């Protein structure tokens, strides 16, 4: 795979094995600022592993990942954590909201981890919750809201720090189609409004339709698919 000029995040020839299972076998990827790229593929194809490698969560066994010109492999664990805190945002399939915190505290959490005061963090969080139409849930705990609402709270949490890249791993996987579409609309609109790149892992064509470009992963190898408009 080539690395188009101006890419924000570039991965080349990634290999990653979990024991005897080869999850990535020479996969590549690139994304521009403001671009929404869907990583597609069947279950067990290696798409989540590719996302985890791109986000610096899991180090690849070999290959290179460059973010904004900087090689992730040369960064320490603390530097990668700091990068994830300040530059990246995450949305997981089941939201992974902290069950004991209220929704607004959950959204404010990444800001608080960056050292923002509680009041300022919660004010910013509330702003994002309004944009994602969940501000009425601010004092509820995740156990008290529906799956779709919880996922919107998770999107707000992912965007609250103003990330340059948003990683979304099956963000609608646990939702019905109506809720799923609403979450995708809000997520992509919000990302585009902030010029954030979105790496979207999904196996649903309906969800992938929100992207600008698709990358298919199969047997650990990736292939760029140009969208037919």
């Amino acid at each position, binding site marked *: 795979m080539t690395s188009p000029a101006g890419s924000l995040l570039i991965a080349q020839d990634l290999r990653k094995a979990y024991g005897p299972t080869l999850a990535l076998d020479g996969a590549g990827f690139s994304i521009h600022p403001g671009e929404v790229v869907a990583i597609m593929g069947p279950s067990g194809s290696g798409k989540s592993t590719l996302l*985890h490698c791109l986000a610096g969560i899991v180090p690849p066994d070999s290959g290179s990942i460059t973010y904004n010109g900087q090689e992730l492999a040369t960064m320490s664990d603390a530097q990668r954590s700091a990068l994830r805190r300040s530059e990246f945002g995450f949305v997981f399939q089941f939201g992974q909201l902290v069950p004991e915190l209220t929704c607004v505290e959950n959204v404010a959490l990444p800001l608080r981890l960056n050292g923002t005061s509680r009041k300022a963090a919660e004010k910013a969080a509330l702003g994002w919750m309004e944009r994602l139409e969940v501000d009425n849930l601010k004092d509820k705990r995740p156990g008290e809201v529906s799956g779709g609402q919880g996922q919107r709270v998770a999107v707000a949490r992912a965007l609250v720090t103003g990330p340059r890249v948003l990683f979304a791993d099956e963000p609608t996987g646990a939702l019905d189609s109506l809720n799923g579409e609403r979450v995708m609309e809000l997520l992509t609109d919000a990302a585009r409004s902030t010029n954030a790149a979105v790496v979207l892992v999904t196996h649903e064509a309906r969800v992938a339709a929100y992207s600008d470009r698709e990358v298919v992963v199969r047997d650990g190898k990736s292939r760029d698919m140009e969208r037919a408009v």
Partner: protein
Amino acid sequence: MGGRFAFAGGREGWVRVLLTAVGVGLGVALLLLTTAIPNALAVRHDRDEARLDYTYDQKHKPKAADTLVISDANSNYHGSDIRGRLVEPEGPRAPLAPGLATYPAPGDMVVSPALKRLLDSADGKLLRDRLPYRVVGTIGEPGLIGSHELAYYAGAKNLTPRIDGWQTARITAFGNPHPSPPDKTDPVLILLILVVFVVLLMPVAVFIAAAVRFGGERRDRRLAALRLVGSDSRMTRRIAAGEALAGSLVGLVFGTVFFLLGRHLAGSVEILGISVFPSYLNPTPALALLVAVTVPAAAVLVTLFAMRGVVIEPLGVVRTAKPSRRRLWWRLLLPLGGLAMLAPMIGQGRSNGEFNQYLVIGGVLLLLVGVTALLPWVVEAVVARLGTGNVAWQLAVRRLQLNSGSAARMVNGIAVAVAGAVALQMLFAGVESDYTKVTGQNVEQTQMQVQNLRGGAFISAAEKFSATKGVRKATALGTLQVGDRSWNSKGAPGTSSSVTVGDCAALREVARLTSCHDGDVFVARGGDRGMDADTAKLARPGRKLYFDTGDGFSKGPDLVWPVPSGLQQVRAIKGPNENVYSGFLMTPAALPHRMTGLVSGQVYLSLDESVPDVHEYVRNTAARIDPLADSIVWAANEQSTKFTSIRTGLLVGATCVLALIGASLLVSQLEQLRERKMLLSALIAFGTRRRTLSLSVLWQTAIPIALGLLLASTVGLTLGAVLLKMVGATVGVDWASVLTMSGIGATVVLVVTLLSLPPLWRLMRPEGLRTE
């Protein structure tokens, strides 16, 4: 079905059962150990009785084919007692001591395995100097009361002259010739024993109750799935009970295995000077059966009780809607009920018979159960009012606000143990003075005393002790009695006085001497025992006085001493043994030659206690002078042995219980962390610092433990005050013990948190996000 579910579910299911079984197993092992204590004590007692060689009440036996002369040569090395015996079999049928195949020849010795190990080690170097015998064998288990007991039998010659009926005796059999029923134990000591047992066993019960709830959240989710396929509410409860029963049954098996392993290992450990042989630890069958029945029953009851507050619906796994607020009134009833049970015994004291055992056990039990009932309420009430701080604090507080019950359960065991221990420490401190005797020994002046130096050896001993490393001053004094008539005459002497023998330097320690030469005799006046008049009657030059030559066991020959002329009158002063004696003071040259062999004396030693092993050097010198010399380290106080034993028992038990509770805390901590593996990985994924999560785990434990210790101290102080009132002692708060026990409890939590950090860090790996 519940049983099948307990084991189904692949690795997760097995891990859950394993955690419960290990937890229950540890508790069961400790309970089985408790049921084995009566037997262990009985065996120790029987073995100790079987090797008794006391002859206090026996008549003088002549030498025969079945006699043995045996001398007590006990010693102490680095704080451990050594049971030593010198033996001289006098015929082919001399009684053989338990554990011995044959007696060692003079110059040889047979030793306990522990003593052999000590003598072979570098640590035993000084002891080898003291026991210069050749090791020719080991004492078998029947001759020892513990696997770590230090004991030896050394062959000796010419012990007959040392027969005195107490230290050296001629015997024809070992064992207690007149076994008597055990002494009636003081009611206060019985009260202490009862409370010690309740206090130590309560945390074990609390721990078992916590262990059967391991994996509860996962189980609830599984039960919800069962509801989805048609199981009704009662069926799910039955299934949950079945699961708990299966877990507890496996726990019983684990407990038995742990107990057997522990029993095997018991022979290789010594706790606070007490060791046992594995064969001692046989659980009392009835008590073991009680454990086997009670533990599974308790597991089922605890599970059903815990499920009261959980609504399991077919959808949405477990509806964790806000639980109803905990009510205080019935929780308060428990400790109040406990106090009500103890109240009738307030003021009973020691003199009004025994305390009602059932009321004591019931009252203490209810008070301690009250801690476990009140703690969840206290934790809930306090954390609800806690504000937000940094992220770690916020995560911890919010978690506690959402589910304070499991946190309270985690620290319940510690809280109960601390409450009980605080109360007991108060009771011990309150009655300690009743069981502590002031010895009157002035430890400023004299730190050690060597006694039973027979045959005039003491006269030259002072010089040898003075040359011993660490000895500042040695004062050797012998004591004799003189009377106006023969000690063999009917009615004994009418008037008698004491004779203190020593060189001039030693005599200057007991009287004010203006001049002194060897051969001088003095008359000391002004003693504290009213002997001045008798001494004055006897101290008339030319008067014939009779020495007491008996050994306390048989009377000796008449030995007459004409009082010399030119006796110097001197003033008696307080001597090294803190007494002021009137009587004759005699320098060695003035002592009739025939008396030299009959006098026995002691050496008072002033030591430089900064010299390492100074006590051992003194004991070695004493053993070189006379193997039967008795070296005593002076102490300002001495405590009743029974009182000390109960206190030691409490410490041994508390050590085991705290170790168990620590293990339980660790298991529950890990279990909770496992439940949150995915969430922890997600938090790390978006950049949460590990330190933040570690601190949050610490706060989650520290907040309930702080509240638990506060409640425990309050209940402990209340119980302590009631117990002190019951025994009629002055109520005083022993703050040192409160702080110590709370400190120990807090340390356990800190250690557990530190131990749970490596698994926490492992769980925080981003790989935890993988689902495929």
